[in-house]
């Protein structure tokens, strides 16, 4: 028998390999088709997410946020690209790292910030916090503190759509680490067997907390797991918001046609640590630097918009100013909001 643990698990290994050959990027000329307003909106949303997360980080540092938070800085194009093709009727299920999904699905940052500050005006009246933000009215079935916990729920929502011919599709977001949970397997299988209108959207940011997915599983592309369920799987460049839109659109069409689920894997990167305190010893500063400088989805999108002459630098500044204004208002709103009443403690346990 060969020796145990041949990997040098202790060494900090850079796991980012440039250019996964068959990773899908956006098609040429795709920008024009979308139209300027839509493109500007994508940019706005991505910047809003990033700046929101930065504001959250700041609030946390100032001790105003209790508990923990999981920031999605670096992953803006996946949330925005996927949600961009959905209507208000379509649903999403989200994760512990869910702020971006919420914003992209259409939630208002002021109620989100209020929730993070534990205020009565927050999406969950201050009772849920970062890991449980839900906004059923715009189709956000909820963040989830349990890794892969949202996938079964998403299948149930999709079953309802199918049974009642409601026409909506459910996008379940989850991380690379979540694909090793039993709940992932059971959910994708049942969705496939029942041809449910679901899109399983894996944000492969390379790590589950500290564990490189390459050490936790023995395949290169998680989308290949689709073949276990007889459904299509596609690996895309998660820093390319247009590629994300395009592939999500295809999966959406498939789902709406009654052809069942699709597994999308978007390669991306979280720029920050896993949560509040993370020395990030499991990866190198070089690897981080490379992603942050060469694969920043927002920067790349701005450059592309400018290069293709769709938008001017002035307009980008305008977008950024709008974001700033919205966020300033959100923070003010959240800070000035009241604490939940003590009597609310025992409310809402039962409907």
């Amino acid at each position: 028998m060969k020796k145990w643990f041949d990997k040098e698990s202790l060494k900090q290994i850079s796991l980012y390999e440039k250019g996964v050959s068959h990773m899908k990027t956006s098609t040429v000329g795709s920008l024009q088709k979308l139209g300027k307003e839509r493109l500007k909106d994508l940019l706005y949303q991505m910047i809003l997410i990033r700046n929101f997360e930065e504001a959250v980080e700041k609030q946390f540092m100032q001790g105003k946020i209790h508990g923990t938070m999981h920031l999605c800085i670096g992953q803006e194009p996946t949330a925005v690209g996927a949600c961009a093709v959905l209507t208000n009727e379509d649903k999403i299920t989200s994760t512990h790292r869910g702020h971006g999904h919420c914003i992209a699905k259409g939630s208002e940052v002021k109620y989100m910030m209020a929730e993070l500050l534990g205020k009565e005006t927050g999406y969950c009246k201050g009772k849920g916090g970062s890991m449980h933000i839900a906004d059923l009215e715009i189709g956000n079935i909820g963040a989830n503190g349990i890794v892969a916990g949202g996938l079964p729920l998403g299948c149930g929502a999709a079953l309802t759509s199918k049974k009642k011919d409601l026409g909506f599709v459910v996008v379940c977001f989850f991380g690379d680490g979540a694909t090793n949970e039993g709940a992932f397997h059971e959910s994708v299988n049942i969705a496939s067997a029942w041809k449910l209108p679901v899109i399983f959207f894996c944000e492969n940011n390379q790590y589950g907390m500290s564990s490189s997915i390459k050490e936790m599983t023995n395949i290169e592309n998680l989308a290949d797991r689709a073949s276990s369920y007889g459904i299509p799987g596609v690996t895309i460049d998660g820093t390319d918001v247009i590629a994300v839109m395009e592939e999500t659109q295809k999966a959406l069409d498939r789902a709406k046609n009654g052809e069942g689920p699709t597994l999308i894997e978007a390669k991306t990167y979280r720029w920050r640590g896993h949560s509040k305190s993370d020395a990030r010893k499991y990866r190198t500063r070089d690897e981080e630097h490379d992603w942050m400088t060469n694969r920043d989805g927002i920067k790349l999108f701005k450059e592309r918009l400018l290069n293709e002459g769709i938008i001017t630098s002035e307009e980008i500044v305008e977008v950024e100013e709008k974001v700033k204004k919205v966020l300033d208002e959100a923070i003010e709103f959240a800070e000035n909001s009241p604490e939940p009443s003590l009597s609310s403690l025992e409310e809402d346990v039962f409907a």
Partner: protein
Amino acid sequence: MREITYAEAINEVMCQEIEANEDVFILGEDIGIYGGAFGLTRGMIEKLGPEKVLNTPISEQAITGVAIGAALMGMRPILELQFSDFVTVAMDQIVNQAAKIRYMYGGKGKVPIVIRTPGGSGAGFAAQHSQSLEAWMAHIPGLKVVQPSTAYDAKGLFRAALEDDNPVIFYEHKLLYGMKDDVPEESYVIPLGKADIKREGKDVTVVATSIMVHRALQAAEELEKEGISVEVIDPRTLVPLDIETIVESVKKTGRAVVVYEAVQRGGYGAEIASVINEGEAFDYLDAPVVRLGGKAVPIPYNPTLEKKAVPQVEDIINAIKSTVVTYA
């Protein structure tokens, strides 16, 4: 009135409710043409069709989550878990999702699901198919827990469970499935949270659940011959618990015995005993409250040992006598 079995009563009410409300459907393993592991869904797929009776893969996490997600979208699913021991592979969805969603979301959304599942020993299925784990569920805020002991109660409580806007765990008992009872054909509701005095008495109050109700009634009959008058109360629902009826009875009798099949240590009988001890009844107690639950062993296969592992009529008689006689 017509006599039908506990299993038939549940089958009947499920059919009635599915026919009456288009949001109601049932899902579970082998509930289609097979009719369910214990025959509870027999004939349903033929009558109601495969859209209302969903046969699922063996994927308890997924199917539990499917029920919850559908409920959040306005459906009212019934989930059959083949054996209540299999909650062990669905606990996250039940406890971290169904029970907490509404609260975590600040009062948004609701999860009206009924999880039907058989508990209990006595059928020879051994350690992994014979547990009574209702105490786990009753400990979790956000869940309601029902444990009917008769066909009549099962039918009425099931409808109440289904009409409730919250997740309800509905514990059936394998040995009760074949037990007959007078059951009206038309649908009726027995509200959650109302105990039933199955037999009136004045010397001692026995609070018993599920199959133990019947054993307690038998014990009461035996003891009557010896001049001991036993009141038997069936709480019927553990959450909400009808504390008032129990306490009133104990105030009258001055003595209480709590009988349950689950392992005595840490079982819900400890909660019931505590509630009796804590409330107004304390001052009326002539003797310590006695608990009689299962032994602290996994359920063994051998039928003699299996019986010895949980309270039988004789054990109940002895427990009652210990409190009535010792503290006469």
